[in-house]
């Protein structure tokens, strides 16, 4: 498995190799079951880029992000941050690295301590790392508040006095306090109003340009991801099924799951919207405690074949016989689907309606 993975890119800030994270559940009086939240994930996050990580709820994308920051202990696999293997690093060894990687959370209401005023929340990373205290810290807090577009007097106020978008800005200021290289943004806009989403996404982009940040942007909103990402990785049930440049992925998805996801995005043009084909996924996401054998998507795949899909796990690979441009997909029949040699099962694809 591991030797078939693409080699690490020299410009990678983060290299994740065959990362696995299994939670064990149950115990007393019940049979133990292992939930394979992340089950063999390999990808690079290149320095200065935004890598989008998309997938349905429960596919393990949040877990991947948190494990990279070593908030969870990986079960197996390697995490290499700037050339340093951190998968087994102790809390003490991690302390200096924490300055270089930060996190933005999905829920701006639960990610700030309600009993801590905004100034203290932003100054805390500085104090913990002994970088600034007293008036020096105050100055830095004011500076950070200005960077994220909040007034300086916000420092003395408590989180409940702010709106969701403002709180997200506070969280952003806190994550910027240590001048990190990598920010793992876990659905940073999903909990916000659409009008506020745009503001925060633009702010994220401005900050990236200003401070040379690298983002791992976790989301399920495909439109937002396309807007902000340079490259996109698609996850399904603890595995990555496709990685490609944002435009390549949107213009020519290779994996049937990616196709299905993209076909669910409405197109704001009634004529196109009416005539495009839509792939309808049936059934629910299978339980990660008992994932399907072979290709994990075979239970819902409209192109599922009697051979290979059930018993042979597909690897991430470039498509044979064409320019890949770094696009890799984990499907045995990607070429056949692309060339139209395989037809989807009846009833799962809604074809163009006859237009009047």
């Amino acid at each position: 498995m591991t030797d078939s993975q693409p080699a690490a890119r020299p410009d990678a800030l983060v290299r994740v190799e065959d990362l696995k994270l299994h939670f064990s559940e149950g115990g007393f009086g019940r049979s133990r079951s292992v939930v394979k939240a992340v089950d063999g994930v390999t990808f690079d996050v290149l320095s200065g880029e935004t890598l989008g990580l998309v997938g349905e709820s429960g596919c393990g994308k949040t877990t991947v992000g948190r494990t990279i920051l070593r908030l969870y202990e990986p079960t197996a696999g390697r995490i290499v941050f700037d050339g340093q293997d951190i998968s087994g690093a102790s809390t003490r060894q991690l302390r200096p690295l924490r300055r270089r990687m930060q996190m933005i959370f999905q829920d701006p209401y639960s990610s700030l301590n309600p009993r801590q005023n905004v100034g203290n929340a932003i100054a805390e990373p500085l104090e913990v790392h002994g970088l600034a205290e007293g008036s020096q810290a105050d100055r830095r807090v004011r500076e950070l508040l200005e960077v994220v577009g909040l007034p300086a007097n916000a420092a003395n106020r408590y989180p409940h006095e702010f709106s969701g978008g403002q709180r997200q800005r506070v969280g952003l200021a806190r994550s910027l306090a240590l001048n990190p290289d990598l920010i793992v943004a876990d659905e940073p806009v999903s909990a916000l109003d659409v009008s506020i989403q745009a503001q925060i996404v633009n702010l994220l982009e401005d900050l990236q340009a200003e401070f040379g940040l690298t983002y791992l942007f976790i989301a399920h909103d495909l439109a937002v991801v396309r807007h902000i990402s340079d490259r996109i990785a698609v996850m399904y049930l603890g595995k990555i099924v496709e990685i490609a440049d944002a435009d390549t992925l949107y213009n020519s998805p290779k994996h049937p799951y990616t196709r299905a996801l993209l076909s669910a995005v409405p197109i704001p043009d009634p004529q196109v919207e009416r005539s495009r084909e839509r792939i309808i996924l049936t059934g629910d996401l299978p339980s990660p405690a008992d994932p399907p054998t072979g290709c994990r998507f075979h239970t819902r795949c409209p192109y599922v074949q009697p051979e290979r899909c059930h018993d042979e796990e597909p690897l991430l690979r470039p498509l044979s016989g064409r320019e890949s441009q770094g696009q890799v997909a984990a499907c045995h029949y990607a070429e056949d689907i692309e060339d139209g040699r395989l037809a989807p099962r009846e009833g799962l694809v809604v074809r163009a309606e006859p237009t009047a």
Partner: protein
Amino acid sequence: MSIAEAQAAELAVEQPSGLLKDALVRLRRNPGAILGMVLIGAFVLLAIFAPLVAPYGPAERVGGLATNPPGPTSEFWFGLDDQGRDLFSRIVYGARLSLLIGVVSVAVGLTFGMSLGALAGYFGGRIDTVVMRSMDIMLAFPGFLLAIGLVTVLGRGLGQIMIAVGITNVPVFARLLRGTILGQRESDYILAARSVGTPGPRILFRHLLPNSVAPVIVQATLACATAIIDVAGLSFLGLGPSDPGLPEWGRILADNAGRLNQSIHLVIFPGFAIVLSVLGLNLIGDGLREAIDPKLRS
């Protein structure tokens, strides 16, 4: 009005944070809580200014020995007891004792209970199991029975009694704090603190505890009332402070229980003192709970 204000100011000093300020505003709109604060404020003032309020000392004999001591008169508001002591003065001085008992025993319970609860909730795993199972063992005894047992072992000094009653509160506080800490431990802001490399003790004291103490404060107020009742009960059963001169309300009740038919005032007034102080604390506790707990907010 100044009493309620003084109470509010006292509480505000304890918890100078935004959410508790809000809670205090809500508390001031709760008539029950205000009544409680007035009652307890009155007892606090009585206790502080006892020598000024009470016309006589707590052990001072102003009348002769009597089997049927006289009831209330204009000179002796609550009447005299069998030793010829002024009952009003004894009850006023008793307020000192009861409030001291409530505060000290709750402080004992809080100190040990919160340490154990924080330990169990923060570290989890084996520490949690050991601590919480020991607490379960303590809870298996009815609180009052446990207090009786502890007094028998520790001795009958006032200090020992307060410690005994405090110890019965330890498992209650430990469980409460552990539960709220467990609820907070996986929240995003704790994860955020960990992701910037905040050391464990700082996470506990800066983040977990400030967000977990609210229910403990409520419980402490209620436990204060229970402690007063427990000590009164211990005294009534003859397990109270061994010094017979101490004007402890429960002891006054016990000493005079046999005179219920002849001199009912000797039972009624200390009984009222106990009831009113406990009622006041309970009203404050319930008010605090409603003010702090968003789930009970209407």
